[in-house]
């Protein structure tokens, strides 16, 4: 049964459709007629710098299109801002938002302009399109870079102790023992910022994917479970292992992301399971990040199948309520072009490769980006599960904190997560749950 909200939404959508249709029917606005576009981005330093750089680079060639950047909070609070504005038809002309599972919750078919086959997507790498697609329609262009989710490690510590990046979990554990013996923290954990606790589980997905190529599909269809799939449960087990072996920093329960990054950069800790995106903003205060910090994927058990899990870049989407579709598309085409990515590189050092045809990493790219590129060149990467499946339980971060602090055994944590996921799938109304 639909409520009046549903009907209101439909009415709004129809209205928006009518306006877009009207716009599309018109020839492009007469030259010289200025248009002002609004662009909603989150308020993180990196995002804002990237958005400004692209807008500034776009402006000179398009003097009659003016773009105003608006900001919103990050995280779930920001998610709710985006959802509310989309559902009330009050969204900016275009907005920056995650690709993958989070996009699915925005109901793009109802709230966003369809860009399938549009020239604005001409330069987007084909393999990226799936993460901005729902129901066979593409809705966004990539902005910023892909990143790696795995272990960031201090290369100076590695050089001092004569260590090599591990290819298996056993080697990783051996490295950790040596780091611990040297009086440093082997594995930095920062559970006050709960989301940072998820990397051992989420970053292990490359290993799950190589062992069980169908896991993502089965998982979405409610046929595969974490607790019942040993390969998938390994991630929880890894998390329990590093805690049990005493590899974590003192006070890991109340440490924050910033403290963790500082420990890593200053060489007080050797490894930090984290996303490579977090490094570029540090360059200002710690220029050594560019060379000292490296990246490797979370090691599995087979050295021959060593690889890394990739986080796809976010995308710029178009609200269905926009009245300037032609101008917006012009900007989108610029964002997803080599000129657009060059502008981004000038503002923020890339944390990984771009997903735009013809865009290359600069020669002086930071070490983590080069390490990640090496995995991509070897074709040893898989996107994180959240880019392959709309199913992602919201309580994973609390569960991984509990498992990583030794409060919950790994198997129990995995089972709790399966329950959490079932709740989310039901709330999303997915088929088969």
């Amino acid at each position, binding site marked *: *049964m*639909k*409520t009046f*909200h*549903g009907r209101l*939404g439909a009415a709004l959508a129809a209205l928006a459709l009518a306006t877009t249709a009207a716009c599309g029917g018109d020839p492009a606005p007469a030259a010289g007629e200025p248009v002002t576009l609004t662009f909603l981005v989150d308020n993180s330093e990196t995002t804002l710098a990237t958005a400004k750089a692209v807008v500034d680079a776009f402006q000179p060639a398009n003097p009659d299109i003016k773009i105003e950047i608006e900001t919103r909070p990050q995280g*779930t*609070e920001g*998610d*709710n801002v985006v*959802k*509310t504005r*989309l*559902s009330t038809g009050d969204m900016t002309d275009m907005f920056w938002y995650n690709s993958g599972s989070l996009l699915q*919750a925005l*109901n793009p078919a*109802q*709230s966003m302009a369809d860009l399938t086959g549009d020239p604005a997507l001409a330069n987007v790498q084909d393999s990226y399109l799936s993460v901005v697609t729902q129901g066979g329609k593409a809705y966004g262009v990539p902005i910023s870079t892909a990143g790696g989710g795995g272990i960031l490690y201090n290369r100076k510590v590695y050089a001092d102790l004569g260590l090599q990046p591990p290819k298996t979990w056993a080697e990783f554990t051996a490295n950790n023992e040596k780091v611990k013996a040297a009086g440093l923290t082997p594995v930095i954990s920062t*559970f*006050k910022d*709960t989301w940072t606790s998820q990397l051992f589980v989420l970053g292990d997905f490359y290993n799950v994917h190589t062992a069980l190529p169908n896991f993502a599909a089965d998982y979405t269809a409610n046929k595969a479970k974490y607790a019942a799939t040993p390969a998938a449960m390994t991630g929880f087990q890894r998390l329990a292992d590093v805690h049990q072996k005493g590899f974590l920093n*003192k*006070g*890991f*329960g*109340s*440490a924050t992301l910033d403290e963790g990054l500082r420990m890593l950069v200053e060489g007080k800790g050797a490894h930090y399971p984290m996303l490579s995106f977090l490094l570029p903003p540090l360059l200002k205060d710690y220029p050594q990040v560019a060379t000292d910090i490296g990246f490797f994927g979370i090691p599995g058990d087979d050295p021959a199948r060593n690889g890394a899990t990739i986080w796809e870049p976010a995308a710029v989407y178009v609200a269905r309520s926009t009245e300037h579709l032609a101008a917006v598309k012009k900007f989108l085409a610029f964002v997803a072009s080599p000129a657009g990515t060059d502008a981004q590189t000038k503002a923020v050092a890339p944390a990984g490769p771009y997903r735009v045809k013809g865009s290359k990493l600069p020669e002086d790219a930071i070490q983590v980006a080069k390490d990640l590129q090496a995995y991509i060149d070897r074709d040893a990467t898989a996107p994180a599960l959240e880019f392959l499946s709309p199913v992602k339980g*919201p*309580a994973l971060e*609390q*569960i991984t*904190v*509990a498992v990583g*602090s030794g*409060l*919950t055994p790994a198997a129990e944590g995995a089972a*709790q997560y399966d*329950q*959490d996921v079932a*709740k*989310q799938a*039901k*709330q*999303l*109304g997915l088929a088969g749950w």
Partner: protein
Amino acid sequence: MTKQDTRPRPKAGPAEPDRPQRRKAAAAYPYAFYLPAGIVYVVIFLIPTVMAFYFSLTRWTLFDSTFVGLENFADFFAEQNLSIGFRNTLVYAVLTSGLKVVLGMLLGVLLTSRLRLRGFLRSVVFFPVLVSTVAVGITFSVLLKPDTGLVDRALALVGVSGHDWLGDATTALLSVALVDVWKGVGLATVIYIAGILSIPPDYYQAVEVDGGTAWHRFRHVTLPLSRPATYSVIILSFIGGLRSFDLIWTMTRGGPGFTSDVIASIIYKQYQAGFYGLSTAGNVMLFLVVSAIVIPLSWFLGRREIA
């Protein structure tokens, strides 16, 4: 939203005795004068409350909603950490209101005695009440850090050191509760000071005539005669404890894991996850639970007060 607006209502009690007068006053003015307040009340309280009851029965994504009957309530009760949340909420409410009663009364007695700097000390005790809860939470998160925090450094002097107060499952909720007491005890003290000062001095003189000690004065005069103050403190801090959220959220976010989750933080996390129907169902439950506890409690304590 529903949970905050319900609470002031039981306190409408004290106005009851002069009802006849009020009725006369009502007749003196046209009903239209009630309209502005009435509209505000209906628009921002009644309508959302009724809508909340409806949306708690739907799967609601903000874009559309599907009627699912009582499924949300079933899901809410199936929430794995709900029992932890209920237990923590009760423990927190009982612990904080208990400590506020005991410490508030002791401080009240202390600050009504003849003391140098009495006025200054009263302001010192009351000061934390004025600070924003979120600021207190952030400050104490830093103070409680192991090794670097001020609390840890101070405790190191007596040989206790390196404990991760907020990061350890066994001490997280307790630490937050103690900070809550630090912040809230000022208000309890002020209520006790008022209560103690309103005790007629004749009783104390009588104890003195009978040769009683300070203990007798406290045990047989102050304690029984400040009972109304005790009831006010219990009601206020117990309700505050039941709906506690801001301090817990800023200090531990319900963690580590789920160990310091309370009902309000569970609901908030569901809302954050975009489960609007489910979290609304949780709010409806909280509304009912708080009403079920507070209405009889305030009726009971109110009756005792009059008698």
